[in-house]
């Protein structure tokens, strides 16, 4: 541990003051790490613990649920909630959005990263600017349009507006990935007689698969977490997405909020994302920071 913190041991011997200074706070970063982990995980842990209590001791404050119970999970999946159907809806909406956006976005990102053409910065600027627009500014007119063309309570009414944030996100991420690949790849392909289109299809795309995959995860999570669009364009229970349905769970006795069932459903909606994050954390971090750090 000390070797990693002090890369120059001779310096320590020449300046004992600095060594002493370092000695008393060497543990601070580790305490800090502990604090950060605690900060990030404790609310989530509370959701997990609360979801595993019995409905009757939902207000208990023991750090571990005693006794364990899956009552809340059964309650979340009770027929009157329509939660299972909502999960399927979420999957459809987020999945189709992700596929569409990747199909279109990969092509554009390749052009932006690798081809030399007029107006490239304008396109980049448009992609960046559109991602900054407040969703509500797009949503109000779309809502009016959708009610006049009969799209209220349809999947496409959720998918099409979701592309407004998912497409710029995907194009931006993919452009960064394509930029990181060595230009020699296409040059070699072109020397071998490939056209730019062939170079893209046969050389670049297979090698960019990890970047495309990471972008798919990030886009899927963004679409899965979308709330205001799904809340606004759908009012039929069978078409609502999971976050919307969970926020509208009603208790057995009218007005009381069924927190236990909400926490259980919240865990179910979040766990797939947390598993994705744990499995692909390195890549996700690389993808997320690519947008901010160039």
């Amino acid at each position, binding site marked *: 541990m000390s070797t990693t913190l002090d890369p120059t041991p001779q310096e320590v011997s020449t300046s004992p003051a600095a060594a002493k200074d370092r000695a008393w706070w060497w543990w601070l970063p*580790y305490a800090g790490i502990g604090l*950060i982990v605690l900060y990030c995980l404790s609310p989530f842990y509370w959701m997990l613990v609360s979801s595993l209590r019995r409905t009757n001791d939902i207000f208990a404050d023991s750090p571990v649920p005693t006794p364990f119970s899956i009552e809340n999970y059964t309650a979340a999946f009770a027929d009157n909630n329509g939660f299972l159907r909502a999960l399927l809806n979420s999957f459809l909406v987020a999945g189709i959005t992700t596929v569409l956006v990747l199909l279109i976005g990969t092509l554009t990102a390749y052009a932006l990263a690798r081809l030399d053409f007029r107006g490239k910065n304008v396109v980049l600027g448009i992609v960046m600017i559109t991602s900054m627009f407040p969703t509500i500014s797009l949503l109000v007119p779309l809502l009016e349009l959708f009610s006049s063309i009969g799209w209220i309570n349809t999947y496409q009414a959720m998918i099409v507006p979701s*592309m407004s944030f998912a497409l710029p996100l995907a194009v931006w991420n993919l452009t960064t990935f394509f930029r990181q690949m060595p230009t020699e790849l296409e040059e070699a392909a072109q020397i071998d007689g490939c*056209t730019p289109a062939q170079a893209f299809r046969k050389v670049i795309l297979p090698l960019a698969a990890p970047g495309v995959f990471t972008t798919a995860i990030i886009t899927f999570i963004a679409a899965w977490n979308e709330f205001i669009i799904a809340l606004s364009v759908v009012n039929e229970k069978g078409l609502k997405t999971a*976050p919307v349905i969970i*926020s509208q769970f009603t208790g057995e006795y009218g007005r009381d909020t069924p927190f236990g069932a909400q926490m259980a459903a919240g865990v179910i909606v979040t766990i797939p994302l947390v598993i994705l994050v744990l499995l692909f954390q390195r890549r996700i971090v690389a993808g997320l920071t690519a947008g901010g750090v160039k």
Partner: protein
Amino acid sequence: MSTTTEAPPTPSPPPPRQSRRAGAGRLAAALVTPTMLVLALVVAYPVLAAFRLAFYQKKDGIDPETGLLEQGETFVGLENFTDMLVGDAGDRFRNALFNTTSFTVVAVSIEVVLGVLMALVMHRAFKGRALVRAAILVPWAVPTAIAGLLWRWIFQADGVVNKVLDLETPILWTTDGFQAWVAVVIADTWKTAPFIGLLVLAGLQVISNEVYEAAKLDGASPWKTFWAITLPLVKPTLLVAVLFRILDTLRMFDLPFTLIGPGKDATDTITVIAYEEAVKFGKYGPASAYSVFLFLYVAVVAFVFVKLLGADVLGTRAGKKGR
């Protein structure tokens, strides 16, 4: 802005290059067009339509000739805007504008300070980095609407926060009032400070160690090193992160909506009241006026950030230097 800056440093002979460039141009047009079309449909068209809608109101009178309810919409000029600023809806709108702004200023400030602290800690610690990176992504991955419900549960009158605080009279966090505002700020900070930490950490990692060693040789204190070296060098990253967080907080909806609920003076944001006008009351005119205002507000803030503070959003400057 000119495309020539993107050209490779070694110029190739003109004739083949031009033809290749023309071919690349055609290919690029074909590749870029689908994205531009989709963005025109789902972004450009709605924004323009919102500007138009903001000058109209739904007819709600009775036609004097037929005695039936009037259909369609009428042009009302600036009425939606004057209503919003000084008229009937003025109080509600100004309140929402204040909430939107105060959430943004306070939450983003706290998040930046916490995020930078987290990044510094993560940069120092070599052990446990994988653990902390996984942990830091959890708040980011939790859907914001679910995070709102989670914090609503934590902030219940007989919830865990009040138990920990152990006051004589429990605080009613989720009803209304200043405490509800605080609850939203706390929830937002939890969700996004780690994300800022992640971005700043990436910025820290590209600073070469030699700079720090030079500072150490010159006898700079850690405090001085932070202000004179670390902060200026992560500034470009930080500016972009802050800009994105500000724009994101200006359109805040999910947290106030699920944590506190709509129709609360302390936490209604512009997006919340625009949503209520449009979805609950079907008044697209006033709702559009709110959202057009928010759109312009966001545009002005982004402009100030890019022009005055020099936030390098497109990464063109860094790209020229770095690669």
